[in-house]
């Protein structure tokens, strides 16, 4: 139960990050290898903002929740216009370019922020005891064992992620910008012919994708810490999730994120974390080799 809840927190954050990656791939057909670094940048910026704001933890955190994703989104849009657009979104050159962007962001962070891991205080953090139930000789019993608890903040993270994911979904299906995105996704040439400003749509999508990763990072940073190398794992896991969920499919991505994270907790009971990672990585590679449409994707290419 407790492991499941912990799993749900990381699953929520992973889903946000992966949806960002999936959105960018779905609409732009760009594999953004620098996605993990946008995540990292979100966490580091959250630390800066919280650090500069001072006062009550909630003030700094609230500010970070807005400022970090927006700033990261702007940086991403800049990278899109300055680099990706200029290589014409050629798939292979884009990947090489985003590898370059990965190192630039990571190393500039190392130069400015330094190699230390730093915490951000959560805005609220009450301990909530959890009930446990058992079948005893006297029948069904419900009690609150000591030590079995979660924090209000963790529940809030799950809730917030759900709200954001729903917002993204509504944005894609109900709004004009969502319509433009889907049109561009279906056929870039036709979209251009119909006067859709494809360049601007791409910049916005790349910014939103990066912003989602940053938002996920801000949410998780009070639980973990901000560090310049923290982008690697989210990148790898997002890849896994997006590939298993079916490239470019948002619902598939969310389902896969939950599945991976929940199963991760269970797998690591039996195997060491490293072995679990090896198996997960191999699984992804084999899924790509034998079922490129994803485990949950339909027959469409």
């Amino acid at each position, binding site marked *: 139960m407790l492991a499941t809840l912990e799993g749900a927190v990381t699953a929520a954050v992973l889903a946000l990050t992966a949806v960002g990656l999936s959105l960018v791939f779905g609409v732009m057909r760009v*594999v953004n290898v620098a996605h993990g670094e946008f995540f990292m940048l979100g966490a580091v910026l959250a630390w800066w903002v919280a650090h500069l704001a001072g006062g009550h933890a909630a003030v700094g955190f609230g500010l970070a929740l807005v400022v970090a994703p927006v700033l990261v989104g702007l940086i991403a849009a800049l990278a899109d216009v300055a680099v990706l657009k200029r290589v014409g979104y050629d798939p292979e050159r884009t990947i090489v370019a985003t590898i370059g962007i990965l190192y*630039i962001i990571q190393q500039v962070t*190392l130069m400015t922020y330094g190699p230390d891991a730093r915490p951000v205080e959560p805005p609220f953090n009450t301990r909530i005891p959890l009930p446990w139930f058992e079948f005893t000789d006297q029948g069904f019993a419900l009690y609150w064992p000591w030590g079995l608890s979660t924090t209000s903040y963790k529940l809030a993270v799950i809730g917030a992620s759900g709200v954001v994911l729903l917002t993204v979904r509504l944005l894609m299906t109900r709004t004009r910008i969502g319509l433009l995105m889907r049109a561009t996704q279906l056929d870039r040439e036709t979209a251009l012919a119909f006067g859709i400003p494809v360049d601007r749509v791409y910049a916005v999508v790349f910014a939103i994708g990066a912003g989602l990763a940053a938002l996920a990072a801000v949410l998780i940073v009070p639980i973990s810490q901000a560090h310049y190398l923290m982008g690697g794992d989210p990148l790898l896991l997002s890849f896994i999730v997006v590939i298993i969920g079916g490239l470019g499919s948002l619902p598939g991505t969310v389902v896969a994120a939950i599945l991976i994270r929940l199963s991760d907790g269970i797998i690591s009971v039996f195997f060491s974390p490293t072995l679990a990672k090896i198996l997960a990585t191999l699984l992804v590679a084999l899924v790509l080799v034998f079922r490129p449409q994803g485990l949950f994707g339909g027959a469409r290419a």
Partner: protein
Amino acid sequence: MISRSLALHGGLIALLCVLQFVLPAYHHGNLARIMVLATYAGAYNIMFGYTGLLSLGHALFFAAGMYGMGLAMQHGGLSPAPAMAVGLLAGLAVSAVLGVLALRTAGVAFMIVTLMFAQAGYLAILYFGNWTRGDEGFVIQQAERALAGIDLSDPTNRYFAALVLFALGMGLTLRLVRSRFGRVLVAIRENEERTRMLGYDVFAHKLGAVILSGTLSAVAGAAYGLLFGYVGATFGAVQYSIFPLLWVLLGGAGTVIGPFLGTLFMFYLIDLSSGITSAYMLVAGVALVLLTLFAPQGLAGEIRARLWRWLP
């Protein structure tokens, strides 16, 4: 045409041979490393430059050779010559398996699949820490590093061993680009469907390219471990998959001399910047972005396009 190419590449080998006697110790050691790494870059080039297969997982082959050699010496008690053979065979086996699997995909999926397999390999090195000593790695003792009675830890011997390896790698590539097999690889890079419709077994040729490239990478990895006496997990990490891509892009993909030029420039660029800051990989990042933007052909590619059309 052939003699000009022979003069250029033979001249490079001769120059490297002479440099051995004039370079100060520091650069002498650097150049030995560069020659081994350039062999690795040249191996990468067979797949990327000539066949058009962009792998993001070559560290898997480099590490397969290095650990194949290192573990055979450390735990198998083998002497360097058979240990090198073990490294070569490890690369052969790993690249054959990876090729058969990864070549079912193409383009972006191929890049991700190679990346994932290499990541799994890297994690496996960490996981089997009892044998590999994980991140820390292990040292091959100076006394054991003798091949046919020649002490490879001696700087001069090491330099010449690296030079021989480099010359062999370059000779192999020169032969390859003139062979029928190599010409089909280039045809696949240029237009895969057309190549198939001329009656060539595209899959078999690509697999051949992966195995050749992977095995030569493994030999370079094994030689690196043997010559410099250290085997460690960093050589299996993502960075060592990105490096050959960077070197080849910088030097010029699909040219025989390009990988050497790229490795030489990048090695010294990173060497210089790591003296200034610990964030030396920034240089690699900036170089990757600038190259994709402004010089996708690399140094030798630009030379070929502007000056020497005959450059192989």
